[in-house]
């Protein structure tokens, strides 16, 4: 780089369209700008939502916190096939499979432990996509607040307690 160059005056801007007289005077332009501002101030459309009181509609396929589904008899639907844990890109599903109680005649395995580390989860929905028996789902629950890290390590009970999608009003 030429050493002297930095101390040159910056070159003048290229001549664009010549400003009109009213633009040259500047004041009319400011008034015009303010008119636009006030137009926005009084327009009926509102984009902000007063959040805790009012809520935005959450669409049906929103990818929020997980829930484990139950079947007609209220048992966990999962058959511990590990497909969700395999498909998970962030490797945050940990399942321990065990033999089902003798009275469960429709399957041999069920998860004795089913844990999702919600702090690792990226809410991609690939576990739901991978599940072959519709046992896991991402709900519309988006407020992921807890006071400790441990609370975000969801066990089977927490996952079974999660509200299901259909329990949310308005599915936009």
């Amino acid at each position: 780089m030429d050493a002297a160059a930095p101390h040159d005056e910056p070159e003048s801007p290229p001549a664009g369209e010549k400003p009109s007289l009213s633009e040259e005077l500047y004041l009319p332009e400011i008034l015009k700008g303010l008119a636009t501002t006030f137009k926005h101030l009084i327009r009926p459309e509102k984009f902000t939502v007063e959040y805790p009181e009012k809520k935005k509609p959450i669409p049906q396929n929103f990818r929020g916190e997980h829930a484990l589904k139950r079947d007609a008899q209220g048992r966990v639907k999962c058959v511990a096939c590990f497909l969700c844990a395999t498909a998970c890109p962030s490797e945050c599903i940990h399942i321990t499979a065990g033999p089902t109680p003798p009275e469960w005649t429709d399957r041999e395995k069920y998860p004795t432990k089913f844990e999702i580390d919600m702090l690792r989860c990226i809410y991609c929905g690939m576990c739901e996509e991978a599940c072959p028996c519709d046992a896991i789902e991402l709900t519309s629950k988006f407020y992921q607040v807890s006071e400790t890290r441990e609370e975000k390590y969801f066990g089977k009970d927490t996952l079974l307690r999660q509200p299901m999608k259909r329990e949310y009003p308005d599915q936009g």
Partner: protein
Amino acid sequence: MAETVTPAPAVVTTVDAGRNAAGEKLMVLNMGPQHPAMHGTLRLVLELDGETVVRCRPEMGFLHTGFEKLGEYRSYNQFVTVTDRMNYLSAINNNIGWAQACEELWGVECTPRCRRLRVIMGELSRLSDHILCVGLQAMDLGAFSVMLWGFARREQLYDLFERVTGARLTNSWTRVGGLMQDVPADFVARVKAVTDTFPEIIDETDKMLSKNKIFTGRTRGVGVLSAEDAIAYGVTGPVLRASGVEYDLRRARPYSGYEKFDFDVPTQTDGDSFARFQQRLEEMRQSVRIIRQALVDIPGGPVNVDNYKLSLPAKELVYTRMEEMIHHFKLTMIGHGPYPPKGEVYSATEAPNGELGWYLVSDGKRNPYRVRVRPPSFYHFQVVPKLVEGRLISDLVAVLSSLNVIAGELDR
């Protein structure tokens, strides 16, 4: 006595000595990585003579995440979640670019419906990226309301993305050979609502800023990038076209059926910050034009290729039929595929910032052997010194915001 000759250093500049012409010491200023005017965790080491930038050294690596390396440990479908996070302002364009690279590797072509939907969503994503960039450019120069009005429109777009993909920012919308799911029934009506209202904010931004004395005074003639330099530095996208080079991958190497649509590739002549601003406005107008055409007669049919070795079967079939269930297992379990052919492929799409290229090496296994991304921001960040050296430090802000450097894809 023999004269001692000190060999001259290869490049003699006052800058290296850290002194200006008057012999005063230059001031070294670190701009970033946590400076409010920096777009992301970028760092510029500036040497200042008064307020003049004598030397500018861009530094990257503050947001290094190992995305490319991670690609070797994730399957082709899983990696789409990582592409979201490379450019979080236009995640859908990244998803599309990735899926297209994988499809080129596999040698499959996705269905007409999928391609059309990708065009629509890709252009919507471009709108949201450009309106943000234009707004931030104005905000950096003090015009805050322009950005907020743009944000209101962007919110409408994000609601639509949320409806279609299930997430606002990290969409992960594409899969190899298709999409994660078909669009909802009210998709066309919602996109129409966007194309009806969006041009208004483009025109308004144009009206508010293009003849604004302060804005033009701070952007016209600032950060001029000549066409030759732009090409030499490998700059692409709106920045290249603002320098007067008519090069757009949607035109030069059409993909997803862009050749069927009637749109212009706008260019500017000045190559300064103002030209880049105008360029983005023009591109938004063209995007709206493309979306309007693409909404007519969206092809029907499935969104995924009809190949159970590559795309997951429909869920209803998996629940009820044995064959689909087996394919579903095989596609998800490790050790059964989907396996691409061995080979290498470079595939590029026109992302909002420029040419987004993926270079994939496959050894026929479930995960890529190597993933390399050519992010547009990398090339834009390296021209910063060229544009700001010799100018005032306040010009730097105007230049940087017009380049729209995204730290996520810069450092990857």
